[in-house]
């Protein structure tokens, strides 16, 4: 299993959609074969179409806001000692997270497919919020599938979704979180694929959804590369890019331009959700060595029991609370190009507390997992090491959880 240089990782699959011969694929019902094939053709054409790219870049410029800031966290660096710590403030993007990039591509594809409706899943509510925003902008009807457990714990984003005129479809089956929301969204698409475009909210699902999502979030690392050259005059010689991993869309977007670099120069560190400190439950299939399973149309490391049932997960952050992970990250893990670890709920909260006390930023609980690892490793490094954390979400959506767990929340 080997990564090829000079080709975007998302395109390094075989004709059946597998990366490294075994991750990904298209495990879908016959009914979805045709809509998926249509979408594959449309995406292939669009990504090479000058007008499509122009429209996209224009939206990035004037709607998302580009580039998102690249800032030094001087106080945090001083406090921890060791490395120089920076953050890529992807939460600056319109809507407050990286999910906007994928949502824009899907809305544009939906328009070109001449469909009037779009549907998606959401965990943290950010993906749902972004789809509701672009649906409003592009005059599309929008349904957002969301587990009722997440509806309860991510209220600010739910309010935003509804304000934008989209409908939240509460999902009550199974664990009532993201995994069930994605299943329900796919079921809805099976029944309505003739009229409705589906967008999956992360780097997961049948191959085409992995590709569209990765192609979209790659904007993050394109910006970062320029910003690094501005700041350092070159790509630093000892760089660590730390990113939380739920499905893995922000991590891939943050890393994609740097995958071809030697791993001794640019180290890629993915941080999964370790769950509550004293619980067996977690959402870390890569770092806790889960076996490969087939979920939501793709083969990937997946938290499951010995009979193949998907196991319950647990995480303080809805956005990371997913039993499987992108086939792309399985590929990165098995080739050794990226390393994966986890942070517990408590470590993420501690990191949130520290970062918000020292710096004028307020990452959501998902990137707080990445900050937790920076906090752990930075003291062992020295000033020639550069750590960059993708601060890919804003904490406002987590205000209730944070207030409950830390006693107060101010923003």
């Amino acid at each position: 299993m080997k990564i090829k240089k000079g080709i975007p990782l998302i395109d390094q699959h075989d004709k059946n959609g597998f990366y490294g011969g075994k991750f990904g694929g298209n495990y879908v019902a016959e009914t979805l074969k045709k809509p998926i094939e249509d979408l594959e053709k449309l995406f292939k054409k669009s990504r090479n179409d000058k007008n499509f790219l122009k429209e996209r870049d224009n939206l990035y410029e004037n709607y998302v806001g580009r580039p998102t800031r690249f800032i030094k966290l001087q106080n945090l660096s001083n406090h921890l000692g060791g490395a120089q710590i920076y953050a890529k403030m992807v939460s600056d993007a319109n809507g407050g997270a990286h999910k906007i990039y994928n949502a824009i591509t899907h809305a544009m594809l939906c328009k070109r497919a001449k469909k009037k409706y779009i549907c998606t899943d959401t965990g943290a509510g950010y993906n749902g919020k972004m789809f509701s925003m672009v649906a409003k902008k592009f005059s599309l009807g929008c349904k957002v599938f969301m587990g009722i457990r997440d509806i309860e714990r991510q209220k600010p984003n739910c309010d935003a979704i509804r304000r934008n005129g989209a409908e939240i479809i509460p999902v009550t089956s199974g664990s009532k979180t993201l995994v069930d929301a994605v299943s329900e969204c796919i079921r809805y698409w099976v029944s309505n694929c003739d009229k409705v475009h589906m967008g999956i909210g992360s780097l997961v699902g049948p191959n085409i959804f992995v590709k569209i999502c990765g192609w979209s979030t790659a904007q993050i690392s394109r910006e970062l590369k320029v910003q690094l050259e501005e700041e350092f005059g070159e790509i630093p010689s000892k760089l660590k890019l730390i990113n939380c991993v739920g499905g893995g869309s922000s991590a891939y977007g943050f890393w994609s331009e740097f995958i071809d670099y030697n791993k001794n120069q640019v180290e890629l560190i993915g941080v999964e959700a370790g769950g509550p400190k004293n619980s067996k439950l977690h959402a870390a299939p890569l770092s806790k060595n889960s076996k490969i399973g087939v979920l939501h149309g793709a083969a990937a490391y997946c938290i499951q029991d010995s009979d193949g049932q998907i196991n319950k997960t647990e995480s303080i952050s809805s956005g990371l609370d997913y039993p499987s992970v992108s086939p792309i990250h399985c590929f990165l893990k098995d080739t050794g190009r990226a390393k994966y670890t986890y942070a517990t709920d408590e470590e993420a909260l501690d990191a949130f507390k520290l970062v918000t006390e020292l710096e004028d930023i307020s990452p959501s609980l998902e990137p707080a997992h990445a900050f937790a690892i920076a906090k752990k490793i930075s003291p062992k490094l020295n000033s020639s090491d550069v750590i960059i954390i993708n601060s890919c979400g804003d904490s406002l959506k987590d205000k209730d959880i944070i207030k409950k767990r830390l006693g107060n929340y101010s923003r």
Partner: protein
Amino acid sequence: MKSQISSVFNECKKENRPALLTYTVAGDNSKKKSLEILKSISGYADILEIGFPHNAPTADGPQIQNSSYRALKKGIKLKDVFQIVKEYKKNKNAKPCILMGYYQMVYRYGEKKFIRKCKQAGVNGLIIVDLPWPENKAFARSCKKNSITFIQLLSPTTSKERMKKIIASSHDMIYYISMLSTTGGKLKVSPRKILENYNKIKKINKSKNLVIGFGITNKTIGALKKSDGLVVGSLLCKEIEKSLKKRQNPVIKLNKMVKELRKKIS
């Protein structure tokens, strides 16, 4: 040698009626009850489809989802599913059994071992909802080698070109999904339209037994009887739920219901 599945279709053709295929979930709502249900309905059904439950079903509507969740709550495992089929097959009038479920369960169990266990238990056919053609080619071949019919699915979205290829690599039974829907959806296409599509498929290869499923109930089954076979699933799963709620015996209820279905197509 002719498969048991083919023989059943031939018998039904002689009687000038479609085969009646039922779908129930193994272990709903217990191992024992689901076995009793199979024994009881097999007096009227021609082929029994038996679901092996999975907790992330991406193509099932609420009725079959609930059936699966009830079974899983009781701790049903794949080994129990095989056990149920094996027990059922001990009856001298046992009908052909088709296991139906999601690929994840097969993948985790191991394809080879899964097929071996199927054979040992007496399973006659397999439907893997999310293992479409051409990805299923190798698996289908292994099934055939072990005298198990791998059932290809066709849907209203399947292009004619694709249909021809799928049919060419199909075994003795094919499943036509009546409409764009998960299982158990309301029939949103007229039976006339469904039969029109059905006949187009038959024209490609008359010798294949083609069954229609998804959304068929006691109200619509009669209108579709000019076909090789009809599958009723969600209606039965719903009836199990209803009788459990009312504390009635689902075995008796299902027996009655399948008897009526059979009457409507005879």
